[in-house]
């Protein structure tokens, strides 16, 4: 199977969120991601994107790069969304899950981003490479499969 790769690279600003979402959704649709998984992809990607806009380039500006990839190892039967920033080393996935059982008073406002990323993807991972943070959100293309989760 051929690897298909589309890349969108834009300034990491909140007003680019709709364009980033449209790009990810188009890529996922072309790859054959099931419609019912689309909203989860959008939610996971919004959280990652917004974190970069808000935290990655403190006091400055920078770019965020999205790559829609299909047919690539080690996930040939998955849709992979890679989200790359050039900010300081930071692994969003290292943040502990929020306690979602607390009442209004005790609840932290925020901290749900990572939780959404974990919940709405079949697999997610992070690596630091060439001075960049690369977060991968992976959705399986097989109807009932959980192949990516197993790796």
């Amino acid at each position, binding site marked *: 199977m051929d690897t298909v790769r589309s890349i969108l690279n834009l300034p990491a600003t909140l007003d680019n969120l709709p364009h980033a979402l449209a790009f990810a959704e188009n890529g996922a649709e072309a790859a054959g991601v099931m419609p019912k998984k689309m*909203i989860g992809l959008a939610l996971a990607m919004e959280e990652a994107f917004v974190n970069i806009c808000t935290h990655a380039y403190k006091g400055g500006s920078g770019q965020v790069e999205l790559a829609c990839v299909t047919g690539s190892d080690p996930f040939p039967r998955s849709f992979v969304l890679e989200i790359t920033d050039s900010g300081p080393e930071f692994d969003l996935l290292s943040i502990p899950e929020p306690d979602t059982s607390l009442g209004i008073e005790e609840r932290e406002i925020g901290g749900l981003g990572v939780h959404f990323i974990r919940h709405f993807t079949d697999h997610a991972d992070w690596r630091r490479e060439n001075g960049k943070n690369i977060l991968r959100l992976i959705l399986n293309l097989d109807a009932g499969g959980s192949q990516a989760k197993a790796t």
Partner: protein
Amino acid sequence: MDIQTQQTGKATVVAISGKIDAMTAPTLESSISALIKEGCVCMVLDFGGVDYISSAGLRVILASAKSLKSKAGTLLLANVSGPVKEVFDISGFGSVFTIYDSVDAAVAAG
């Protein structure tokens, strides 16, 4: 996102439609803050027209509930279904808020 406000008895019903994301959440936040500032203490958020809500939206709801609670007020949620319900569920909002099947039920409870 579109926001329509209506007074029903002592309750202020805020009907939201469209997407509540990081781009639109600040608009919702300022609309709700303005209503609280004007003296609203019983607020019903109608999610019937909402097809997407991200954590930025949940943050606004949580902040609004805290703000109302500090004034002995209350925030009620109605018509939460589909993907919005899933987001509420995985965030534990189901246990923090009572969710009503209709605006009328929420108003009656408020």
